[in-house]
Structure formats: structure tokens, C-alpha cells
């Protein structure tokens, strides 16, 4: 029993914090711009592969690799916003059209990755310290990132502008706030979060081209489960999903992780469509 509790708690907290960080990065973009940014999955994969490349292939050490990977993820996120979503939105693209464009860029990035690096999973290099250190680093940085994001979105001026942008993108322009610059910042932040988390998890478990999509599915389920329209919902949803997955892994093995997430998604959609924290978005 104690083994069960310690395993579920440690694994659940690590998986949960990891899902929460990815979900945060997705939700700040999704809730303010309403773009179904599925290319985020590819940005995650890209971050993981870059970290692996810098760390294992070039031997730069995990801290530097993490920095580089985050930088390039942020850059790709920024480029996708500047050269894809922004012009498309300006030309009045519908929600579905943005979605298909996003699917297109996701597929391109993921298969370019598999062209360059091959489709076989890349494992982290021989651990310089103990295995524990990869995971303890992951949970420490995740915790810091989550607290930082919660503080920024709930307490700072920036968070206030973010919520204003979510509630009424037209009005905020009239107030003299540059909403395009704000969105640009959000995309950069989202890229950094994806890159960081991808690097941390690659350092622990390794990466394959499709990891990003799995992680994205979990993250979006966490966003929905946590509650629509609220950034802290992503964190709550992430931890709920993480603990749930840890319980299932303990009893049934890791083959069924995604099925559990999916069942949670269906249950939430059927019984509590507004999510656990449950505020309804004024835009809907």
C-alpha cells in the first residue's frame, strides 16, 4: 500500500507537472487567440530533438542544450505566428481554415524531423549523475515554471491584458494596447514552455517524432478537464490527469495511458463540459 502511494504520488506529480507545463503553453495561446494551435505538438517534438542533438550528439551538457532547445522552439513558435496565423487571421480565415493550416505545418515539421533524424526513438545519453537527478531537475523546473506562469497570468499587468484580449480582442485595441505585440509575446512564451518541457522529458525518457502529438493530446485534455478560459485550469487538469495516469500505470501498465486520458475526456465532455473549475467563456 505504501509502495502504491509513493509510486503514484511521485510518478503522478512528475507526469502531472509535465502535462501542466505543456498545457499552460498551449492554453495561453488557445484561450487568448482561439487558434487551435496543433502545430504546438510539432514544436514540442522539435524541442526534444534539438535538446537530444545538443546534449547527446554535440555534448554541450543538459543546461546549455535546454537553453538552445527552448530558444529554437520559441523561434519556431514565433515564426509560425508571424508567417502563418497572423497573415491568415488578417485575411479573415475561418476557424477551420486556421486549423487545417496548423495541421499542415505540424505534419511538415514532424516529418522533416523524421527525415533528418530518422523515425527510431532517441534515448538520453548515459546519465552523468544518477537517474534521480534527471527527474528531480524536471520536477523542480516544472514547479518553478508553473508558479511563475500562475503569478504572471493572475497577478501581473500582463495577465490582465491577456484576459482582456481573451474577452474582447476589439475593445482592447481601442484602449491603446497593441494586441498583436501581446499575442507575439504569448507565442514566444508558449514556445519556450514547450521547448523546456520537451528537453526535460527527453533528458529523462528520450523522444520520437510522434511524442509531441501524444503529449499534445494529453495537454489539451488537461486544458479541457481543468476548465475552459482559465489558465490555472490547465495546471489543475494536468495534475488530475497525471495522478490518474500514474494509478493506471501502477495497475495495468503503460500501454493504456492514452486510453485513460481519452476516457477522462469523454467523461468530462458528457458530464462537465465546462471543466473542473468550470467558468463559461464569454466568447462562446
Amino acid at each position, binding site marked *: 500500500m505504501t509502495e502504491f502511494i509513493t509510486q503514484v504520488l511521485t510518478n503522478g506529480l512528475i507526469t502531472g507537472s509535465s502535462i501542466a507545463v505543456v498545457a499552460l503553453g498551449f492554453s495561453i495561446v488557445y484561450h487568448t487567440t482561439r487558434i487551435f494551435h496543433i502545430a504546438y505538438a510539432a514544436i514540442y517534438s522539435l524541442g526534444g530533438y534539438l535538446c537530444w542533438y545538443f546534449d547527446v550528439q554535440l555534448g554541450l551538457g543538459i543546461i546549455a542544450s535546454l537553453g538552445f532547445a527552448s530558444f529554437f522552439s520559441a523561434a519556431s513558435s514565433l515564426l509560425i505566428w508571424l508567417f502563418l496565423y497572423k497573415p491568415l487571421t488578417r485575411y479573415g480565415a475561418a476557424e*477551420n481554415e486556421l*486549423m487545417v493550416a496548423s495541421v499542415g505545418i505540424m505534419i511538415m515539421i514532424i516529418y522533416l524531423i523524421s527525415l533528418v533524424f530518422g523515425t527510431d526513438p532517441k534515448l538520453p545519453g548515459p546519465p552523468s549523475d544518477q537517474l534521480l537527478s534527471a527527474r528531480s531537475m524536471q520536477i523542480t523546473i516544472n514547479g518553478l515554471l508553473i508558479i511563475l506562469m500562475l503569478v504572471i497570468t493572475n497577478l501581473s499587468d500582463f495577465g490582465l491584458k491577456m484576459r482582456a484580449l481573451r474577452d474582447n480582442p476589439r475593445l482592447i485595441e481601442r484602449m491603446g494596447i497593441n494586441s498583436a505585440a501581446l499575442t507575439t509575446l504569448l507565442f514566444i512564451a508558449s514556445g519556450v514552455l514547450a521547448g523546456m518541457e520537451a528537453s526535460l522529458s527527453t533528458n529523462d525518457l528520450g523522444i520520437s517524432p510522434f511524442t509531441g502529438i501524444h503529449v499534445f493530446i494529453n495537454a489539451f485534455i488537461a486544458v479541457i478537464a481543468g476548465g475552459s478560459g482559465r489558465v490555472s485550469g490547465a495546471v489543475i487538469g494536468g495534475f488530475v490527469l497525471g495522478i490518474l495516469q500514474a494509478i493506471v500505470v501502477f495497475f495495468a501498465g503503460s500501454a493504456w495511458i492514452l486510453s485513460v486520458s481519452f476516457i477522462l*475526456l469523454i467523461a468530462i465532455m458528457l458530464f462537465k463540459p465546462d471543466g473542473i473549475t468550470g467558468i463559461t467563456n464569454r466568447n462562446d
Partner: protein
Amino acid sequence: MEYVIHIGIVLGLYMILVASAQLVIGHARLISLGQGAFFGTGAYVTALCMLNLGWSFFPALLTAVVLNAVIGLLLALPAVRLKGDYFVLTTLGFQFIIFQLTVNLDRLTGGPAGLGGIPSPSTPQFLPISQSGYLFVVTLILVIIAFTALFLLQKSRFGRNLKALCDHELLYEISGRSPIKLRAQVIAVSAATTALASAVYAVYMSYLAPGAFNLDQSIFILTGVMLGGLSRLRQAVVGALVIVLFPELMRAMGLPATYGPSMNQVFFGLVLLVLVSFTVVKRFQSNERRNQ
């Protein structure tokens, strides 16, 4: 000759697949990333009916169609309650679940090694054609059945309702009809017609592996729909022609086997991007012109 028949069968299958996907993506305006999974469930149901229950082809096909419709309905009921994004996520999740199920339920599906030895339907005595020739005829008949059904459906009350729903969802709801129900029906119909293609695929390949029904397949079908067009059935034919003949062309040009599939996917991603940008810009320009 065998090659021509092979291309003919594959083309027929993709015509059905693209037309079914077009119903969901074009007419119901729901982006589905799970068409490949529906293709897979149909194929596995057909194969299992024939292998484990010893049924012949046509009853197995019918079972696959009915079961796929049921699966589509079950998947749709929670998913279409909310917005388009949730549907994409659910279908994407469904896609991966089906893949995991086919890999993990190895007693039933043969796991990653796949399911082999699916018998081909026996050619009737009075037909003087080869085995694959007969399958080609079956495919042709199924294409005609699928397209007639989809055509009649679009001309019927159902199709008009669907058009109304897409034009103005709120008005549709106000007039006392349920958008949820209609969308769920669309997905069920699309899954059912998809099963027609999967049944033929199962017996034609005589071997099923999980890898054939993964996300690549869904993207492939989505690209076909977007390339052809979103509204008319003949556009689905064009889309299927392009996506089937393009990889054949690439192969004929002698791209190495390891790069081929990934290369194709990159290309399809690019096609999706360019198509969307093109449509959006063109519509914007024509609106501008109208406003002047």
C-alpha cells in the same frame, strides 16, 4: 495488367474514403483526423468476422458497415456537443487509441505483427476473370453504391438540413432541430461508408497491420479532401486521383524507399498549407472587389 487493376482498386478505395471524409469535413465542417482509424476498425472487423467466425465476404462487409456506424455514433455523441476544436482532439485521440488497441490486443488483432491469411472472396463460376479482376469489379460496385448513397443523401432532406446547419447554426437550432443529432448522424454515415472501402482493403491485402491505419492515413485522406474540394462528390474523385497517383509518380521517379513516405507527408503538409492560404487570400480579394 495486374498493375492497372491494382491502381484501379486502390483508386476506388480512396474514392470511397475521400468522399466519406468529405461529408464530415466539407459538409458538416468538422475537421476529422480519425478517418484512418475508421478505415482500420472496418478492416479489422471484416477480417475478424472472416477469420474467427468463418463468414464469407459480404456478411462480414455488412457487419463492418453496421459496427462502424455504431462506433461513429458513440464517438460523435460526446464530441460534437462542443466546438470544432474538441472534435479534432477527439478524432485525433481516437486515432491513437485505435492504433494502441490494435497493437495491444494481440490475442485478437495479432498485435504489431499484424493479422494475416484473410481469405479472398471466391470468384463466381460464371465470371471468366481473375481473382484481382473480380475484386476490382466488387470495388467498382461498392464505389457506385457509396457514391449513389452519398449523392442521394445530399439531395435529400438530410442534406438540406446539413446545409442549413452550416449556413447558420443558431437559426437551425432555433427552428427546433438538433445540431448535435445531425452531426452525429453525419459522422455515423461517414464511418459506415468508410467501412465499404476497408472491407475490400482487408481481403485485397489479405494482411492487416496497425501501421496502415495510423495518423498518416488520416492526413492522407484529409489532404485528398482539401485537394479535391469540399462540396461536390466529383471533387472527391479528383482528390482521390491526385493522392493515389502522386505517390506512384514519386516511386516511378525513383525516390529511395526510406525517404519516400516521409517526403510524401512533408509534401502533403505543404499542400494543406498552400491550399488554405490560397483559398483565404482569394476569398479576401473577391470580398474586397465586391466592396469597392
